[in-house]
Structures are given as structure tokens and as C-alpha cells.
């Protein structure tokens, strides 16, 4: 039921107006402008019906004050016993949507209020449509910038850029309908990870933004990142099957407001830098922008030309052993080596290991996870490994002669058997071409 705030210093008029409107609407009554301002804040009515001439604050002043406070168009209809055309004209200039002369007929008042509320609803609908991303129902890019920009100008908190990792593979492998389903679910998960008063929007594609007021601690961002990643993976497996091996996840770049700025563009650029750091360091995580981190980054990429580019390209935090990659990264390397093979005829091999078991490994891990770990620990840093399904793992062995290949595979199988987990593995090896 729509809510109408009625303002009149005259108790009898107030009672009569409320009596008429309460047949169809929820009414709230105020006897002065000051009381109306207080009630507006608390009740957020759908429209205001105010007397024009009131001691202390006139209807015009009340309307101006509220519009100044809330920066929004509030439907106001004035009631007046005044017959002056000038007053009426001033009211419309002020933004009044309608006038009604006192005394008024009940049916006329009801009809005019109905028209105003219908119109306000239409305007609201159009406004909502213009502000909303139609697929996810979140704010669209322009509205996110506006709303978050406005909030960042006066509130403290954390601005987060949230990126869906490896989303392209969903579209490529499962089709765009599945891609849309994942995006919708991802937006629901983000929405559920923040509070109702936080602002969430879709900036485009698989990139989202959220502003959480009064969030300052790294631990909170870490919890949100964990929650989003867990929920996303659960939903992805539900939609695409347990065998789904796309490394879907969320990476979050965050920036503190107002410490790092108050305007949207500055904050967004900083959050983007933090996000880049996450992407460089294995995805599915978060980073909070800080000036020191930026200094390190700047130092690393200092210089110009090729040195700078190399610095950007270089692998950070390189661990020991083989590279554990996602399917799309693995596929890229495979394709590159296959191209190179045309000209250079290198002994590059691909091996596919299949684990013959229906058992789960310890701690609920899938058998392939255990094998990937074992391979990463056992092979060279120039070798590449990927989990293809819960029972299969693929490996690229660089510059591996048949003898080397056999030795490597024997070693892996021996180590696997030493685990004594009751699962056997078989394998196939082929030259990359």
C-alpha cells in the first residue's frame, strides 16, 4: 500500500484529508514542516500532500528543504485555500506536481492522488530500467559509477572490483546460455556476500563492483573472497556437472575509502591495480591496494621498452617443480608447442594419466588432485601439468627423449604406488605435433 505524508497545521483539515485517503492508502500526518521532515526521513512516503500556508515553514520551503536533503524528485501536491494564480504558478515552478484547492471533494482528491502515484510509479519504473543491468538485476555501469561515486564521496569503507576467473571457457565449452546462468548466479552470490545497504553493480562482461560501507579489515575481504569462491564452485558443479574442470573462481581487487581517494575513477583504478596483482598471482584470491605495494610494483616494472615488458611478463612467486595450469593455459601452451614443432622438431611429449578407481583420496580430494600434487613435486619447472577431470591428468614434458620419458613416467608410477592408496594408474604418451 502506498504511503502518503499529509502536512497541515490545521488539525481538522488534517483529520479530514487523512480520513479520505486512508480508504486507499497508508497515511502519516504532520502538523508542521519540521515534523514532516522528521517523518519523511523515517517513513519515506511515496508522495506528500502539503498545505501551502503554514506558520514556521511554508509548503514551498518544506519541498525545497526535502529536495535539497535527498537530491531526489519527491511528488508533492499542495493544498491551498488561496485563489491566487501567482501562488499556483510559483508552486509549479518549484516542482509541485499538482494543486488542489480547499475545500476539496473527496472523490476529486482521491482521483488526483491516484494519478500522481501512477505517474510516480511509471517514472520509477523507467528510472529502474535505465539504471539496472537487465541480466543480473544489479546496477549497470553508469549507475554503479554514479551511486558508488556518491557514496564514496561521503562514506568510509571498501571498494571492491570482483572479476569472474576463466569465465570465457564456460561460454566456449558449455555455450552462452550456460554462461548467462553462471553470470546470474555469480551476481546472486556477490549480493549475498554483502549487506543489503551495500552497493553492487555490474561494470560489464564478467566484471562486478561493490562498495561496502564500514568495511576496513583485510579479514572481511578474505572471508568474502572465500565465500564467493566456494559458492561459485558449488553452483558451477551443480550446473555443469561434478566433472566440470574449468577453474572458475573470483578475484577481488579492493581499495580503502577514503584513505585511497574519494572519487570513483581514482578508486576504481587503484582497485584495478590490486586486481591485477591477484590475477598475476594465481587468481581466486584478493588483494588490497596500498601505496607500498604500488611502489614495489613500480620498481618491478621500472624502466622502458623491452626490459619493462619483460618485467611485466615475468612469473612472480615461482615455486619448485612443474607448472600447474588451468585448462585454457595448458591448451595455449600445447598449441604453441605444436606450432613450434612444425619448424623445430623438438622432443616435446604429452602424457595422459588415468586413475582407475572410484575411491576418493584422503581429505575428500579427488584422485587427480593427488596425482597433480605428486607430479608438480616430481617434475622439472619447465614441465606443465593440468587436471583434466577427477580421474585424469595431462602432462607436457619438454625436450624429453623416449628414454627420458620412460624414466620420468617410471618414477611417477613408483611414487604413486608408494602412496599405497589402492588406486592404479595407466598412461598414454604421444609426441606433440
Amino acid at each position, binding site marked *: 500500500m502506498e504511503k502518503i505524508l499529509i502536512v497541515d497545521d490545521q*488539525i*481538522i483539515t488534517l483529520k*479530514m484529508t487523512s480520513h*479520505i485517503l486512508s480508504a486507499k492508502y497508508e497515511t502519516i500526518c504532520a502538523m508542521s514542516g519540521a515534523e514532516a521532515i522528521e517523518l519523511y526521513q523515517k517513513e519515506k512516503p511515496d508522495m506528500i500532500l502539503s498545505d501551502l500556508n503554514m506558520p514556521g515553514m511554508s509548503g514551498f520551503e518544506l519541498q525545497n528543504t526535502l529536495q535539497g536533503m535527498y537530491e531526489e524528485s519527491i511528488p508533492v501536491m499542495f493544498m491551498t*485555500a488561496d485563489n491566487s494564480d501567482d501562488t499556483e504558478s510559483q508552486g509549479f515552478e518549484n516542482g509541485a506536481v499538482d494543486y488542489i484547492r*480547499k*475545500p476539496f*471533494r*473527496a472523490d476529486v482528491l482521491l482521483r488526483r492522488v491516484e494519478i500522481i502515484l501512477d505517474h510516480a510509479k511509471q517514472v520509477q519504473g523507467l528510472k529502474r530500467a535505465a539504471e539496472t543491468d537487465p541480466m543480473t538485476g544489479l546496477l549497470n555501469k553508469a549507475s554503479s559509477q554514479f551511486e558508488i561515486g556518491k557514496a564514496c564521496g561521503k562514506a568510509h569503507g571498501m571498494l571492491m572490483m570482483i572479476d569472474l576467473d576463466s569465465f570465457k571457457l564456460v561460454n566456449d565449452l558449455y555455450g552462452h546460455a550456460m554462461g548467462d546462468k553462471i553470470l546470474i548466479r555469480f551476481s546472486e552470490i556477490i549480493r549475498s556476500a554483502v549487506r543489503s545497504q551495500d552497493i553492487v553493480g555490474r561494470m560489464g562482461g564478467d566484471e562486478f563492483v561493490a562498495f561496502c560501507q564500514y568495511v576496513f579489515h583485510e579479514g572481511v575481504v578474505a572471508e568474502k573472497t572465500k565465500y564467493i569462491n566456494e559458492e561459485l564452485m558449488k553452483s558451477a558443479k551443480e550446473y555443469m556437472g561434478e566433472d566440470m574442470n574449468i577453474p572458475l573462481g573470483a578475484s577481488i581487487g579492493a581499495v580503502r575509502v577514503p584513505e585511497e581517494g574519494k572519487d570513483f575513477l581514482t578508486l576504481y583504478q587503484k582497485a584495478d591495480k590490486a586486481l591485477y596483482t591477484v590475477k598475476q598471482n594465481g587468481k581466486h584470491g584478493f588483494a588490497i591496494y596500498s601505496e607500498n605495494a604500488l611502489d614495489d610494483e613500480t620498481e618491478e616494472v621500472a624502466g622502458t621498452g623491452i626490459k619493462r615488458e619483460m618485467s611485466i611478463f615475468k612469473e612472480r612467486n615461482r615455486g619448485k617443480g612443474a607448472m600447474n595450469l588451468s585448462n585454457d593455459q595448458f591448451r595455449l601452451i600445447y598449441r604453441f608447442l605444436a606450432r613450434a614443432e612444425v619448424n623445430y622438431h623438438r622432443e616435446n611429449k604429452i602424457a595422459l594419466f588415468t586413475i582407475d578407481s572410484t575411491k576418493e583420496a584422503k581429505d575428500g580430494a579427488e584422485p587427480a588432485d593427488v596425482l597433480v600434487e605428486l607430479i608438480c613435486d616430481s617434475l622439472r619447472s619447465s614441465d606443465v601439468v593440468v587436471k583434466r577431470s577427477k580421474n585424469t591428468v595431462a602432462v607436457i614434458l619438454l625436450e624429453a627423449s623416449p628414454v627420458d620419458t620412460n624414466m620420468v613416467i617410471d618414477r611417477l608410477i613408483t611414487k604413486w604406488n608408494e602412496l599405497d592408496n589402492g588406486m592404479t594408474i595407466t598412461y598414454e604418451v604421444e609426441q606433440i605435433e
Partner: protein
Amino acid sequence: MLTLDVLKEFGANVAEGLERCMDDEEFYLELIPDALDESYYKSIEEAASIKDFKQGFEVAHSLKGILANLALTPILEPVSEITELFRAGTDGDYSKLMEKMWEQRNKLKNMME
């Protein structure tokens, strides 16, 4: 006792007043005594005597709204005239209008008892 018939006899436009109260007779009759509150009339009279037209206008304008809503035409007529004179700041003789205002107000008050 106040009834619709009493109001009709007084000269009120009962049909109009009732319509403004969504034909709720009880509600309409409940509001009438408030419109006869002596303090309004005294304030108007005093404002005229000390020539405080601004204050007089505020009160008269307010009372005019009440009387119009309740369709108490016989009192509304003099109060409307007084309101317009106060609005214009007319420094004239208000005695006849005041007399008429009180006369009508008291008449209804007596009819109600």
C-alpha cells in the same frame, strides 16, 4: 444534540460536508464542535482591534479552511470576507463582520445544545 438535520436547519451544506468525510456521518458530526472553538474567533477579533493584520490573516485563513471543509456556510461567509480584508491589510471598520461572525457561530453553538 447535534444531528444532520440541525446542521441543515442552520444552513450548512450538509451534502457537501458529508461528501468530504466520505459520507461518514459520525466522523462529520464529530468535527463540527472543533470548528466552533471560541479561541479562533477571539483571536480574529483581537487582531482586528489591535490592527495586527498579519496575525489576523493567519488565524482567519485557517478558520476559513475548516469552515469550508465542513461546509458551515453561514459562518464561512463573514470569515471569508474578514480573511480577504486582513490579507489586504485593510484598516477599516470590522465591527459588522465581527458581529455577523459571532452571531452565526453562537447560533450553531446554541442549536447544538
